[in-house]
């Protein structure tokens, strides 16, 4: 695990707490969340973070994996988590160029650019984002 006082917090890491992949990943995500909640770690998120977390919860409620009540409670609590929300305003052509340059999805490029600009690792369980991070020389908070 990388030593860091700040991290870029991916939606997959947040969702791991509500929708655990494995017990080991759940434990990692809980540890990260506790560090963020106790202000030991500053978490940066791009604007799409909240959309992705909400979309993930909605998908899993529709699929019957979790209940609407649990998802609503989870998302409500997320509002109290101290996060530095980075809002970027770019023309669509610039988002496109960036994703092409970085050879990744546009959503990944939002997280990657934040991590590269701030020189902090990315906490993610998304294999696609992890691969893009490695190829763009961004650090990962967890090896996945």
């Amino acid at each position, binding site marked *: 695990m990388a030593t860091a006082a700040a991290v870029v917090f991916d*939606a*997959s*890491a*947040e*969702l*791991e*707490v*509500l*929708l*655990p*992949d*494995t017990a080991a*990943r*759940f434990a990692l*995500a*809980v540890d990260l*969340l*506790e560090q*963020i*909640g*106790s*202000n030991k770690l500053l978490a*940066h998120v791009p604007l799409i973070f909240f959309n*992705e977390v909400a*979309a*993930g919860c909605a998908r899993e409620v529709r*699929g019957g*994996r*979790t209940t609407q009540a*649990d998802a609503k*409670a*989870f998302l409500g*609590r997320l*509002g*109290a*988590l*101290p*996060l*530095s*929300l*980075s*809002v*970027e*305003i*770019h023309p669509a052509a*610039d988002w496109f160029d*960036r994703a092409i*340059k*970085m050879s990744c*999805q546009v*959503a*990944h490029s939002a997280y*990657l*650019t934040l991590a*590269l600009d701030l020189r902090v690792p990315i906490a993610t*369980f*998304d*294999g*696609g984002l992890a691969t893009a991070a490695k190829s*763009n020389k961004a650090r990962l908070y967890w090896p996945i």
Partner: protein
Amino acid sequence: MKVIDQFIQPKGRGTSKRAGATRGRQFSVQVGTPGPEAEAAVRAMVELGKRQKVGKRLGAAAVIKTERR
């Protein structure tokens, strides 16, 4: 909610040769506040998570992968 750097033109973004550099505007907003409320929120989120089934096929990584497809 507190605006940290309102409409700062990021330095070097328009001229940097680094991959990912773009034009545009960026600002940061602090959401949530560190302290007992945040710590209680984390505990509540973790308790919610403990009630869910663990499953790779249906887990967070798979959900995000599908959403980003």
